[in-house]
């Protein structure tokens, strides 16, 4: 898996987002053991302290949990995962709607457009 960092946004924030995304998408399966902080830092090419900080943050959000001796695991709690999906979906939708509004579509047009997109009609 590739890590790509954008300019001007704290790397810590970007790692938090990326890890959240990976958990939401199932790239890290529920209950899966994560690599050590050092290995994850090496994989991402970032400072171990930054990786540690990001992991603490997603742990605080309940997305992962630590077991003192055996390491860090992705949560198995379905509620947490469901909440996460909702939150992400909401965030993406907001961005999307905002963009469509910018090009002048109103609410009805947007909602029709989304329905049609589901049926695959908007693209040739």
């Amino acid at each position: 898996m590739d890590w790509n960092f954008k300019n001007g946004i704290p790397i810590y924030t970007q790692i938090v987002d990326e890890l959240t995304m990976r958990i939401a998408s199932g790239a890290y399966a529920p209950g899966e053991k994560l690599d050590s902080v050092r290995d994850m830092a090496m994989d991402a090419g970032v400072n171990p302290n930054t990786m540690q900080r990001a992991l603490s943050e997603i742990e605080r959000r309940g997305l992962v949990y630590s077991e003192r001796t055996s390491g860090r695991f992705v949560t198995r709690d379905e509620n947490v995962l469901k909440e996460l999906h909702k939150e992400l979906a909401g965030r993406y939708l907001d961005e999307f709607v905002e963009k469509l509004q910018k090009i002048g579509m109103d609410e009805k047009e947007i909602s029709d457009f989304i329905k049609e997109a589901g049926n695959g009609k908007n693209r040739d």
Partner: protein
Amino acid sequence: MARIEISELSKDFGSIMALDGVTLSLDKGCIVGLLGPNGSGKTTLIKILNGLLVPTSGTVEINGIEPGVETKKKVAYLPDRNALPDYMTSDQLVELYSDFFYDFDAAKAEAMIDDLGIDRNQVMQKMSKGTKEKLQLCLVMARQADVYLLDEPIGGVDPATRDYILKTIISNYNEDGIVIISTHLISDIESVLDNVIFLKEGRVVLEGAADDIREKEGKSIDELFREVFRC
């Protein structure tokens, strides 16, 4: 447990002020980028930390003591030039390091040398410039030092090697140590830095945690660097 205290440090070479009242304090457990254009004083600062230059005024302490035999045991230095006896092979250089540095892990050095595809029986003289740099870095990074002072570690190497070097720095990093990397090629290394120090004409013009600066300025360190040092 490493700690570096630099206080009111100045160094002049006759008419040129290479360092002008630098005060810094670095704590264990961080990777620091010492950033600045050529001639900004990066190398001078690193040389003073190594005891290769005597300051004009001010003080430098590593773990509470001035640079000397005791600090040299704990400081691993990658100079900005080839300083090793170039009639020796990689294997002989590994032995040389083992003889003088008790924190040197010969097996680790050999593994790195093999990883980078360096011929262990070739004398250094016959190696390309890039290979020499890689070999020096392997030897330095195979130490378990408190402080690593890396002067332009990625200057002349290809991207694949650069990635390997950064990974080595990360994997070698220990929570009690300090790694100082001097460079002007910031975009290549900025993701591994905890803290950055901008040096301009011998003075510290910016110092802080890399992520804080990104957040505050809304720019990458590299972009900010280009702005601060615009010609």
